[in-house]
């Protein structure tokens, strides 16, 4: 698709989202509100200003080393039908400017065909809103990769996505679905009133498509995160409660539960500041620093590709525009997927800042759940 055609399709989609009165919206994007914290530089400045007794590199620096590439993560853009309060992407229905074009998508597909990574992890925004979402999924499946769709659940109920759950199931795509909690109060508090009810409808749709029923080809992973300025619960400890609670109350089943910490980035950072929790939350993360969480961190074995083809160590660094630090990266415009080469990637220095304390606190937190 040419950029002009992409613009046309995005115009259609954003028109549909503007008409959508069903999807709950908890807030508006920082960008839409022209908030100061829409700028990644302002976010980093605010984080640097917090009084902490140590820095991330002082604790983790030498222990954090690249590991062989396993996960090829593609962020298709910031467009989303929802506007959750904790979103680290600052995604929303207004974010049509940052969407991957087809020239970049072709470069991504080339790199997927070349990479030794076993998994292609597709995220956003709501990646399912991207006009070329199915094209990317198909290309990754054809390349023999395991594919993960990071799904907000409610997007599956939009008319344009009718039949998508079955389409993904036929291709054995794993659904990694955000659900803050298996009960309504904390889910709606974070994602907007009515989000829980729509999430349950989407989960039933996925169960009906064969997801979460024990078939390893139709894996349904739920991703929970705290509704507030505290750390995530122990994954092992709460998984049984979730399983029983969802089954008994809603007849919903799933395969596994990830529990993540909230990252002090974008809208969650704004909320921390506005609610007077920023300093105590950052100190809580630092005090809960767990060296055992380092080995499983996603930045070690994941390549994160942005909507414009730029490369990062993780999706959080991507949102803060902290680009990957490759040994040979002198190219103008920063390291790009067109130049991606795994050997040089293995020799990178992982880029860190204070937000990284979010991934090493407590039981650890990564795209694959807890790490320690």
């Amino acid at each position, binding site marked *: 698709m040419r950029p002009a055609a992409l613009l046309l399709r995005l115009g259609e989609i954003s028109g549909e989202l503007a008409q959508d009165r069903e999807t709950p919206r908890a807030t508006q994007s920082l960008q839409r509100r022209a908030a100061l914290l829409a700028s990644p530089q302002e976010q980093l400045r605010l984080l640097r200003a917090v009084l902490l007794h140590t820095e991330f590199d002082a604790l983790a620096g030498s222990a954090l080393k690249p590991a062989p590439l396993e996960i090829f993560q593609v962020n298709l853009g910031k467009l989303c039908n929802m506007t959750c309060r904790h979103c680290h992407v600052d995604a929303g229905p207004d974010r049509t400017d940052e969407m991957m074009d087809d020239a970049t998508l072709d470069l991504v597909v080339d790199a997927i065909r070349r990479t030794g990574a076993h998994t292609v992890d597709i995220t956003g925004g709501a990646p399912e809103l991207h006009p070329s979402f199915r094209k990317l999924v198909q290309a990754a499946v054809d390349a023999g990769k395991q594919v993960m769709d990071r799904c907000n659940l409610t997007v599956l109920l939009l008319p344009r996505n009718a039949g998508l759950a079955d389409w993904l199931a036929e291709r054995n795509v794993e659904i990694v679905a955000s659900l803050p909690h298996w009960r309504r109060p904390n889910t709606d508090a974070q994602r907007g009133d009515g989000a829980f009810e729509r999430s349950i409808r989407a989960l039933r749709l996925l169960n009906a498509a064969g997801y979460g029923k024990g078939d390893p080809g139709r894996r349904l992973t739920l991703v929970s995160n705290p509704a507030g300025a*505290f750390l995530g619960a122990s994954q092992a400890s709460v998984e049984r409660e979730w399983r029983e609670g969802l089954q008994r109350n809603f007849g919903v089943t799933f395969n596994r539960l990830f529990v993540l910490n909230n990252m002090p980035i974008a809208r969650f950072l704004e909320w921390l500041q506005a609610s007077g929790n920023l300093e105590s939350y950052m100190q809580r993360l630092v005090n809960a620093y767990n060296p055992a969480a380092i080995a499983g961190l996603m930045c070690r074995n994941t390549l994160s590709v942005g909507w414009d083809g730029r490369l990062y160590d993780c999706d959080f660094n991507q949102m803060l525009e902290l680009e990957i630090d490759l040994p040979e990266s002198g190219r103008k415009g920063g390291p790009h997927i067109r130049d991606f080469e795994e050997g040089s990637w293995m020799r990178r220095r992982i880029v860190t800042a204070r937000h990284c304390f979010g991934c090493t606190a407590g039981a650890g937190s990564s795209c694959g759940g807890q790490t320690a």
Partner: protein
Amino acid sequence: METYYKSQHLADFPKISESSPELGKKFFDYYGAVFADGALTAREKSLIALAVAHAVQCPYCIDAYTQDCQQKGADLEQMTEAVHVAVAIRGGSSLVHGLQMREHAKKLGM
């Protein structure tokens, strides 16, 4: 002491061991073991602790177990129900003593 309660005492709780290290260690080891996942989950134990904290009206425990319950995935509805359990038992224990009162009254009265 200017005030009887100081929030810093919560963070300083381990210092109680300084005056009696052996007993302190035994207490905190036991405490940690009590709250681990067992026949009850850590979350269920945290909700019980929150209810007991209200029954004994301990501000340190209310502070600590509000946060602990939230962190273990309990929401405000569940935590409020736990407090009502404490309230019901406290109120019920007062009221059931009314039967003692009735026995005394009946014995003394005509």
